[in-house]
């Protein structure tokens, strides 16, 4: 049984409705774009911030999904504002042009730490949700093997490993992101899943049943994820839905985890049921969707270069190719000034010098255009 109080706390930890007097209304300005529907984002919106609709924000990122810093910023500013940048537009253009009958496209975002990879993923997720795609979002793939809450040996395969709590939480996140769309599409399971002597999900039951079962029964949550993703893959290939899978830090899939079995052997990420479920969708044998991944150095992964081939390793490369590598770089001077203007408008930057040209130059110099670094520095002023 999931700790409901915990879920409730997570829900309410998100957007807290504030009184109109406290939340300053965003004034029309150069650094914002009024186009809040990502389906309409184009080159003219480049370098400007758009505000994610409150409902969308709650739906997509209520349980989890945003980086902690971005989530805290959204809470503080009473809005989630994302910058429209070239890497995201490239992905969106490719997805718009993609053919659902062809094998799914694979994208890989790479770049310096704090450069905006997760934010790009958030933007693309928003677009996909607005376009009616189903979302399978793994916010931090390395957490499954490095900072997991609990792992147990799998019932079906003694070498495999399940995540009772984490998988259930993930299914709650999936449900929050996709509930409305799933209800619209009314997708059904293709085969019967027997969980125990008394519990079974018959063929033809709605997929939401699988989700509900996983959320409530942690014991079967991992297997539910496996079944759910297999079903979604089949539906997408059959053309009944469009599916976007987003996996952040996908290079962790081919690393060792910190979990150990009873005999002391190391559990690889590839031994985990949930990871195997995600790997189903990494294979090129399905159509009607796309896979968006990011890489970042993880503990236990290869040291050295942060570039794709090195971080993925031979196995990861073989699993993902051919993919489109997209670099998410630090911000340009104009983009940095946009962010600074935004912080000023939100009263986050308090120092009067920050509004001057000299102050902006100094902030750009100190951060190097890196969004994460800029946010860190601006929190001091």
């Amino acid at each position, binding site marked *: 049984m999931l700790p409901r109080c915990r879920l409730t706390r997570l829900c309410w930890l998100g957007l807290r409705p504030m009184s109109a007097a406290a939340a300053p209304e965003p004034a029309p300005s150069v650094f914002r774009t009024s186009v809040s529907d990502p389906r309409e984002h184009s080159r003219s919106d480049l370098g400007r911030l758009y505000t994610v609709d409150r409902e969308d924000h709650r739906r997509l990122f209520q349980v989890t999904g945003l980086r902690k810093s971005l989530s805290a910023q959204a809470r503080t500013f009473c809005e989630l504002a994302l910058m429209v940048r070239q890497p995201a537009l490239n992905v969106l*253009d490719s997805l718009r042009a993609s053919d659902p009958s062809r094998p799914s496209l694979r994208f890989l975002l790479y770049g310096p730490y704090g450069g905006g990879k997760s934010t790009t993923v958030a933007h693309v997720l928003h677009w996909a949700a607005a376009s009616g795609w189903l979302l399978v979002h793994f916010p931090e793939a390395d957490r499954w093997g490095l900072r997991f809450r609990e792992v147990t040996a799998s019932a079906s395969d003694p070498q495999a490993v399940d995540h009772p709590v984490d998988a259930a939480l993930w299914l709650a996140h999936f449900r929050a992101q996709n509930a409305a769309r799933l209800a619209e599409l009314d997708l059904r399971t293709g085969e019967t899943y027997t969980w125990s002597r008394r519990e079974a999900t018959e063929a033809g039951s709605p997929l939401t049943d699988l989700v509900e079962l996983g959320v409530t029964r942690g014991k079967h949550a991992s297997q539910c994820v496996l079944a759910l993703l297999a079903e979604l893959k089949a539906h997408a290939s059959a053309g009944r839905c469009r599916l976007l899978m987003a996996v952040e830090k996908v290079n962790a899939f081919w690393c060792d985890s910190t979990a150990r079995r009873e005999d002391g052997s190391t559990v690889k990420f590839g031994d985990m049921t949930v990871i195997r479920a995600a790997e189903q969708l990494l294979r090129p044998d399905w159509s009607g969707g796309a896979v968006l991944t990011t890489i970042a150095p993880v503990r236990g992964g290869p040291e050295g270069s942060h*570039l794709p081939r090195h971080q993925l390793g031979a196995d990861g490369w073989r699993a993902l190719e*051919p993919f*489109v*590598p*997209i670099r998410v770089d630090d911000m340009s001077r104009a983009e940095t000034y946009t962010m600074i203007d935004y912080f000023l408008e939100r009263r986050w930057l308090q120092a009067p010098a920050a509004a001057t040209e000299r102050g902006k130059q100094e902030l750009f110099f100190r951060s190097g255009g890196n969004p994460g670094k800029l946010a860190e520095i601006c929190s001091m002023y």
Partner: protein
Amino acid sequence: MLSLCFLPARAAVPSARLVCVRAASGQPAAGRTDDPQFRPLDIGRRREVVQQARERRRATLPPPRHERQPVNQQWGDVWPAPRTFHPDAVPLPLRQGFVKRPNAQAPPGKHANAELMKIANFLHLTPPVIERQCRALAKFCTPWPEGLTDERLDELRPLEVITQDFLHASPTLRHPDARVVSLKVPLSCLDLTETDRDKLLRLVGDRHDPKTDVITLTADRCPLRRQNRDYALYLLTVLYFESCKREPWEAELRTVADAEKFVWAGSASEAAVAPLGAAADVVNSYGEAVTRLHNEGEDESTLAEYRKAVVALLGLPEHVGAN
């Protein structure tokens, strides 16, 4: 005086002590009166006296040879053969030696300088002397063959044997490093197939220079140079013939992971791309991009090329690949 006071009975004899022996020089000391009866006592050699004697002695010697040598002399005649350094014959203001405070003291000069005398000098082999000797030897030489250029020599004699000879001042004639022999061979002169070459490179390791394609074998394990040379040649022979051998397990156990270079044909990458059904030239350019990325290393330029190739392969908008 005292004796005269207390012994009035004795006769007044002038004391013999006061009659002193004058020093060898008949000159009185400065400031002393020239009294013939009371000559001053001079014990020891006075500085001025010694110096004057020295100067007189020096004046009788001729000046050192380096001051008398004409400027246009033939140095080869002055120093015809190896000789210990002699300061007066060498017209150079040389200084050699250790000083404790180099900022305050000049190193010792060339006269009576043991350091300069100990070391070997080559004053007998100045360039004009060498030229003269070469001219004398030239009549015993034949002209260099015209067609024998450096490139032709590399073809005919690719093997290079490098040894070092040492000149040293030491109790023994032998120098321990003189026994070391190095062998340089360009691999192009060896008859090797691809697999032979790969095997040889694995055996040889760091000794192969990829830029010049030359392997260097150094032998120093034997006490004599001749033995080391024979050993190095033996080593080269063994390397060549071992790399031509094939073990039965090589064909069975060799996997893709053992390959030293990525080969597109028959690879997993080619198989992954085949189902996409793209045009042959697009697939080929993708193959080239992947091969470059794996073989030349991953950096922004090879990744950019890969990105362009993938975008063309998957039929995506071109600007996505232009990033």
